[in-house]
């Protein structure tokens, strides 16, 4: 069949381009768009409200706070509540503000994060690349363990820590956090390492590298993204913890969250709402900053932690 030639009456030029042509007309302000963006904006207001209120209240003096209207910005901005929250707020025991709790939290978080990530990454690596008898069973138990409510393991751990002489110390708490962080982190690393092509691993073994050699020279350099995710997950989780902080430390060593609760909820007498809000804001600042800085990685970390099994 030869190329089709047009009969004169059917040539495109004869049948002029009648009717609609080109792109469909789209109005930016269509009903659908209004509903869509309108709903999203209203929802975002619901989410932003507390942040706004927190910041606004913390920048007002007490007289202004008493005037009411927590939504209104301060007429006179003052950072005094912040200073007070940080250095002189009373928790019933001592009056040196949140700064003590802040540093406690730092001392708790940093070693816990390092320890838990180090152990979990090696575990995940061993599980995936060096399977041995029983490794899968242990892993399954570990994952199941992460669902068990902490309450049931609280007391035995107290006993354990007492035997080790670590009960009531910061290092005891570090140990606890490391242990409880293991299931999720091991899962995270295991899944990530399983996506690294096995050929790389095999080639390295052919080259004669051993367990630790491969770990340090091959796995680690390739895993920077997942380490960051693990970091974010752990720092946020440990910094925000309350239960372990209150059970396993003494009052002088309380992390920031516990201190915060004490400052706000257990103070008798006149409540200084602006100082309370400043304290709350300060406590939430560290994970918030991490969140805003790490954006997409944070989402990835949540998804990884959430998709178990």
């Amino acid at each position, binding site marked *: *069949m030869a190329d089709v030639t047009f009969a004169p009456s*059917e040539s*495109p030029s004869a049948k002029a*381009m009648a009717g*609609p*042509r*080109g*792109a*469909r007309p789209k109005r930016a302000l269509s009903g659908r768009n209004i509903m869509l963006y309108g709903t999203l904006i209203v929802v975002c207001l619901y989410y932003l409200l507390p942040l706004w209120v927190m910041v606004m209240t913390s920048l007002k003096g007490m007289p202004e706070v008493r005037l009411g209207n927590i939504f209104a910005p301060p007429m006179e901005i003052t950072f005094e509540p912040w200073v007070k929250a940080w250095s002189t707020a009373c928790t019933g025991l001592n009056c040196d503000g949140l700064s003590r709790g802040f540093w406690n939290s730092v001392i708790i978080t940093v070693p816990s994060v390092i320890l838990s990530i180090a152990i979990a990454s090696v575990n995940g690596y061993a599980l995936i690349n060096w399977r041995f008898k029983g490794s899968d069973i242990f892993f399954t138990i570990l994952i199941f363990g992460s669902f068990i409510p902490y309450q049931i393991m609280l007391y035995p751990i107290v006993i354990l820590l007492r035997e080790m002489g670590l009960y009531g110390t910061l290092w005891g708490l570090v140990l606890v956090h490391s242990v409880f962080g293991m299931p999720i982190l091991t899962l995270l690393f295991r899944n990530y390492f399983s996506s690294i092509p096995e050929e790389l691993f095999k080639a390295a073994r052919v080259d004669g590298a051993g367990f630790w050699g491969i770990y340090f020279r091959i796995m680690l350099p390739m895993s920077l993204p997942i380490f960051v995710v693990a970091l974010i997950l752990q720092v946020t989780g440990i910094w925000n913890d309350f239960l372990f902080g209150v059970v396993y430390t003494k009052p002088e060593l309380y992390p920031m969250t516990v201190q915060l609760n004490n400052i706000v909820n257990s103070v008798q007498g006149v409540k200084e709402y602006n100082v309370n809000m400043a304290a709350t804001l300060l406590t939430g600042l560290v994970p918030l900053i991490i969140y805003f800085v790490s954006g997409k990685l944070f989402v990835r970390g949540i998804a990884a932690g959430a998709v178990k099994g």
Partner: protein
Amino acid sequence: MTNSIEVKDLTLNFGSVSVLKNMNLDVQEGEFVVLLGPSGCGKSTLLNCLAGLLDITDGQIWIKGRNVTWSEPSERGIGMVFQSYALYPQMTVRGNLSFGLKNARMPKNEIDKRVARASEILQIQPLLDRKPGALSGGQRQRVAIGRALVRDVDVFLFDEPLSNLDAKLRSELRVEIKRLHSRLKNTMVYVTHDQIEALTLADRIAVMKGGVIQQLSDPQTIYNKPSNLFVAGFIGSPSMNFLSGRTVDGGKTFVFGDHRISLHGYDGGAVLERDQAILGVRPEHLTVSATEPAGPSIPAVVEIDEHLGADSLLWLKAGTKDMCVRVAVEGRLPSGTNVHLGLDIAKASLFDTKTEQRV
């Protein structure tokens, strides 16, 4: 014959990237047109525009004499089959076939009639109560075709439907689709990157590259008289041999290196004198002989032979140029043999290097 589909001046831009450029295409009723090309050439994009799944930047689309440029896919009178089948996983086969019809409030007996007809044509009656997860790849593809069939439309669009199947299934289903077309006689537009599907299925092939149709003809013409260098090199496996040179003597002779090749018998346009030309000859249009043959030929040295079972391929070097010749199994020669390659000029194609068009 009326046109089933008319594409007029179709242009599609994604932001500043021009994906389809001023495309014009007419498909006659009952015709099987294949859009063929490498990935990124715009063939799937064009199909999606025909379906109404993509909004175009300029131009018009007419189906069965109606301007459907702004119509929804379900209003265009088309059925579509996807590469990944896209069957609704939670419904049975019967559910998949009838879902669209139920949504259109069609009476139940009409739906049953259409489902019965489609499943009879495609031989999927025993599968009607199974879910897609329990079907094989080939069965799923049949159900996907069935879903388009029940819509009782005139135009079927296929988006690389066989690419997810293994080679054996692919050739089986290819024949089925051809049978389907000859039985139903619907207009079919089919996208693929596989030449074999194109050459075997199509009434006409539109070879595409960079958002432009390079050639629109029946398979024989495309194979024997490719309209430009791209089409010539794309179609045919192993691909055409290209000799770079020039034409002299008023266009009667082709000069390749030190050799003069007579162009007597060339089937094409006015050769003229061009100082940059390319002579293309397919591997099966070359002959190998130990002595110099009567017609035009060039000397060459055998490098490798590949035994394909039914015949063989000889890879030779003519000067610095690699050449490929298809020979009978007995015609295999050891490496290093000096031979003469006879060229069948009547079946060759001459291209102007600058315009890349066939002369």
